[in-house]
């Protein structure tokens, strides 16, 4: 654990920016975004730790919304504009979400070369959350509002000093190469960080105290596979698909081919299981034609089949889907309602 002064941190970022373009969180308004900073254009005024996660999920740097993934007929030495990035300011919920996507894109039988390369080469400098966002519920999913692993460096601000935690060899190398004037952090500073972290954790817990999960979501969903409840819970859904686009763990895509001058390009675009065309086949058969079935499928995938296949739920409590929903659908309410009915039924069975 190291400490660094604000000025030395700024100097470090300037040097670091001579080697890497940045995406850094901005905090100008209520919706925190990543701002692009090309190589050698660092200004101190860019630096701001966003209080909570950005609106844009971290996945978009590793698995882009629209991306060319192949071209044919094959040409020799196809152009490749991959550029390692430094992403500064993502929060714990997004780091954990990447780990969840890793199961599909990096750790399966067919690792996705683009994703794996981005995971290997992008630098992540994460930061602690400074308060609980209105829709945050990471604690409900057993995560915390501060990163404990899966970053290269993590930055915590305590008054005018910064605490740097090294999370990888690459992180140590970057710290050594670009950030001069670090000192070993005194215990008092580490303790101060603990205090801040505890405060934010309590805030998140407090605002979610009305949601109690008595048992696994998987069990609650398994009991409702054939239920009418989904039509009720999803009745205000307008099928816009925003919950899936901004979800840090949603990873469905569609491939399509485009003609170019002398060849064809294969494009991968984010897709959404809420769209009827998502599973429409030639001949017209559309599994999950009813919106209620698609609504169910999203929860089934996140909290049931993902657990079966990978041993983890595909949700880290970032709250983006709640914030973005035009139909005011709250994932916490859906899960709570499912559980309530299971508990109610179990009690009735007992009688």
């Amino acid at each position, binding site marked *: 654990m190291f400490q660094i002064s604000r000025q030395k941190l700024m100097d470090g970022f300037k040097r670091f920016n001579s080697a890497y373009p940045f995406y850094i969180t901005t905090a100008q308004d209520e919706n925190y975004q990543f701002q692009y900073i090309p190589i050698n254009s660092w200004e101190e005024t860019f630096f701001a730790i966003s209080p909570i996660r950005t609106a844009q999920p971290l996945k978009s740097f590793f698995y882009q919304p629209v991306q060319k993934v*192949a071209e044919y007929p094959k040409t020799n030495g196809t152009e490749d504009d991959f550029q390692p990035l430094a992403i500064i300011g993502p929060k714990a919920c997004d780091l954990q979400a990447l780990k969840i996507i890793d199961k599909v894109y990096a750790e*399966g039988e067919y690792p996705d070369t683009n994703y794996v390369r981005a995971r290997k080469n992008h630098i992540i400098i994460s930061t602690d959350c400074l308060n609980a966002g209105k829709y945050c519920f990471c604690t409900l999913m057993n995560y915390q509002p501060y990163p404990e692993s899966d970053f290269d460096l993590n930055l915590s601000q305590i008054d005018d000093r910064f605490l740097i935690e090294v999370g990888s060899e690459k992180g140590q190398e970057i710290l050594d190469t670009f950030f001069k004037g670090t000192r070993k952090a005194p215990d008092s500073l580490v303790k101060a960080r603990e205090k801040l972290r505890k405060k934010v954790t309590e805030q998140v817990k407090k605002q979610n105290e009305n949601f109690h999960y008595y048992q696994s979501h998987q069990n609650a969903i398994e009991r409702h596979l054939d239920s009418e409840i989904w039509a009720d819970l999803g009745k205000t859904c307008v099928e816009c698909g925003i919950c899936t686009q901004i979800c840090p763990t949603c*990873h469905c895509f569609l491939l*399509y081919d485009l003609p170019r001058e002398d060849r064809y390009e*294969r494009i991968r675009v984010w897709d959404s299981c809420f769209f009827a065309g998502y599973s429409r086949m030639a001949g017209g058969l559309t*599994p999950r*034609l009813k919106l209620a079935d698609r609504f169910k499928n999203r929860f089934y995938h996140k909290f049931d089949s993902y657990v*079966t296949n990978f041993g983890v739920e595909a949700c880290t409590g970032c709250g983006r889907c709640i914030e973005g929903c035009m139909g005011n659908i709250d994932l916490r309410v859906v899960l709570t309602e499912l559980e309530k009915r299971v508990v109610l039924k179990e009690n009735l069975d007992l009688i």
Partner: protein
Amino acid sequence: METIFQPLETKVLDVITETPTIKTLVLKPPEPIPFRAGQFMQLTVYGEGEAPFTPSSSPFETETMEITILKAGRLTEAVHRLKPGDMVGLRGPFGKGYPLHKFEGKELLVVGGGVGLAPLRALLNALFHDLDKFKRVSIKYGARNPDELCFRRQYQQWQQLPGVDLEVTVDSANGNWDGKVGLVTNLLDDTDIHLDNAFAVSCGPEIMLKFVTLKFLSIGFKADQIYLSMNRKMSCGMGICGRCNIGPYYLCKDGPDMNFADIQQYPDVFG
């Protein structure tokens, strides 16, 4: 950078017209593509995109690969415009394929509908290659009308193989048809298959699969004796694009031929 989405450029050697709506592409991949019966390929029509098809040729034939395709939409219409000498793309093979080792020593009831006989032909060719390993292969096939019967030129040859029998029916007859008329499920009513030592396999349109499965169950097959070739929209072929799931299974990765016992509990199993 070479990605998992890069198609292998492959020449169309020949195009065989099977029926007014079904054609077989004979392909010559630049290198042999070994596959197991039931595994499928992602076929690229240049500029149109990809769709999944199971080869209809024998897994033991490695120099060329045949894929038999019904004209059903934008991409397959483009397939039907292909001519010998054209190039297409291939990715794969994907999926698990049929568990042939489990079928050894068993009687097999193979039920096809329409172009569903195409993927089954890869299985049949694999079975025919080692016929002594299987107790019996009983094929039941139905199509809408006589003109839509796929691979008609091969029926006689199949029937002459030892331990192989074939029955064909059409939903509605026309002019020269003196065979059976009725749904393929009718052919299952008086099957003399020995249920205690048999597997049932089916491929066809979803609605047919549903009723064939109900028939299998009603004549005494247990769910785990039934293998169904399930179809969902597939984009990646590798279990990562998300859309082809039935329950926790991705048909592209875990299927497309699924044991009915694994999927019967899911309400959307038949669409």
